[in-house]
């Protein structure tokens, strides 16, 4: 039953992606806005890290990697791609608490598909794919400029770590959204956690003290959307270390899925419709 339901949701994916593409085609201003934001953001990061590396050519701390201008520029590309994929695929997570408290779950609960899947898929934002493309161009340019050696297997492992880590992070957010069943609107909590993600994703986390690293790896796994994929793709981690990080990201994603399913099932029984 569960297996057949998972396949059913997957079979709906192309339809939702198509709707998302049609929507963005109708709203080109939003697409240009995303393009401009992405370019300006990247420009600011490049400028920022150039200033830092001018003062301090390499950043080292308790981590294994010495972060120079090349690695930091590459990190910007990885972060941009990760954010693009997040904006494309996971945006709907941010609306879960909104549906619980204000918009209602009815439209999702009457359709023969997972409510959560629908909430997420309905918000697929094709503009994120443009951001992914810009991020990939940035990676390519930094590899060319600094002569970085990229091995395909590392790219695959890095992408896997990023995908699983991002899933863990967003499912953790979904869990926070689920608290709306008990405490009502809680966008404040989400905004704070978003600010943590936005700020730490721009930095190499392995140069920070162990406590911060620990927090950003196991509690709020921001490390997987920028630092870890960068280290893996650039070949700074051994295969065992890469697989270790991928395992942690996968384990965290699984853990938060279990927590989310529990919260969602308990919360739904408390759900009170909004409006008529």
């Amino acid at each position, binding site marked *: 039953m569960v297996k057949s*339901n998972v396949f059913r949701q997957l*079979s*709906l994916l192309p*339809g*939702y992606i*198509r*709707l998302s593409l*049609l*929507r963005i085609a*109708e*709203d080109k201003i939003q697409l240009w806005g995303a393009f401009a934001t992405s370019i300006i953001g990247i420009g600011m990061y490049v400028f920022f890290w150039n200033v830092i590396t001018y003062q301090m050519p390499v950043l080292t701390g308790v981590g294994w990697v010495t972060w120079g201008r090349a690695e930091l520029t590459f990190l910007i590309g990885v972060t941009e791609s990760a954010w693009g994929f997040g904006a494309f695929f996971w945006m709907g997570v941010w609306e879960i608490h909104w549906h619980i408290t204000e918009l*209602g*779950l*009815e*439209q999702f*609960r*009457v*359709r*023969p*598909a*997972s409510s959560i899947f629908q909430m997420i898929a*309905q918000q697929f934002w094709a503009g994120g794919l443009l951001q992914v493309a810009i991020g990939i161009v940035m990676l390519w340019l930094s590899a060319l400029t600094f002569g970085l050696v990229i091995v395909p297997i590392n790219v695959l492992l890095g992408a896997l770590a990023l995908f699983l880590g991002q899933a863990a992070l967003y499912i953790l957010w979904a869990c926070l959204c689920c608290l709306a069943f008990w405490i009502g609107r809680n966008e404040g909590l989400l905004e704070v956690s978003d600010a943590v993600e936005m700020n730490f994703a721009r930095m190499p986390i392995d140069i920070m003290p162990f406590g911060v690293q620990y927090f950003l790896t196991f509690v709020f796994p921001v490390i997987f959307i920028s630092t870890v994929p960068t280290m893996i793709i650039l070949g700074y981690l051994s295969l065992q270390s890469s697989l270790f990080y991928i395992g942690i990201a996968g384990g965290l994603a699984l853990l938060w899925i279990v927590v989310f399913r529990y919260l969602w099932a308990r919360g*739904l*029984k408390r*759900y*009170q*419709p909004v*409006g*008529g």
Partner: protein
Amino acid sequence: MPLNQEPIAEINNVVRIYTKPLVKPRKGAHRRFVGFLKREKQTIRALDGVSFKIHPGECVALLGPNGAGKSTTVKLLSGILHPTSGQVRIFDQDPYHNRIDCAMRYGVVFGQRSLLWTHVPVKESLKLYQKMYNVPKPIFDERLKEFTEILDIEKHLPTARINREEKVTVFLCSHSMRDVEELTDRIILISKGNIKFDGPKRQLKRRWSNERKIRVLYKKVNKANWQTELEEQQGVLELTTQNGQADLRIDQDQLAIGDLLKDIMELLVVDDIQVTEPNLEDIIREIFGDEERVNNLQMEAN
């Protein structure tokens, strides 16, 4: 009504309780702080022991004033809500725990909420539904064509045709009494979470429509005090006159129409007379406008 068949949906002694925060003005910082930490709540019994069955092919209207529990009933039947106590079955399954299986077999439309995706053509939304409901492409194309024609030709009441031709069971909560009048055979009246009436539409009309409206168009009057004479008759509830037209509302239990018409013919030179029974909208408005009558209404067994 095919009552010999197994019910397609059944609600058995269902209670649904909502809670909402109790807003109380508090004086003093300490009390406000305690109130913030320990919020008081009030409970509302949206449904209070509701039971009914719906059989295949039936067309049932659930009617009641705002806050009566209509939406809650529909949301329980469609598995959106979980009952606080009691049992809900649809297609012999628990719709809450087997929501996706059940949802493959029913469709719910909420008036104020669109089920289509915004900023894309309607057809694109329908294509996604085709996938969701596993509808084969040739059948989808055929239905799309058919319903495009229905909606184009019959701008009103496509639901009626769907019910008649497709043998679909319809459970309707509508404020439009025209839909209810034309579409449904059975009516369930609900008020304050309790079912007040459940039976055929004609039975409801019979119970409530002891009133008749009589419109008389007359050329001239035979007696100057004809209005007073009519008004003084027991059973005449209301009389209004305007330019050769008299409108009466009478209670048939107290006054036979035949006797009244005889009197009218003596008092007036009549051009035309129309006798009408109140429509469903009048009846429902009257029922729910009179709380005492609602409370005294005996529940009708299905």
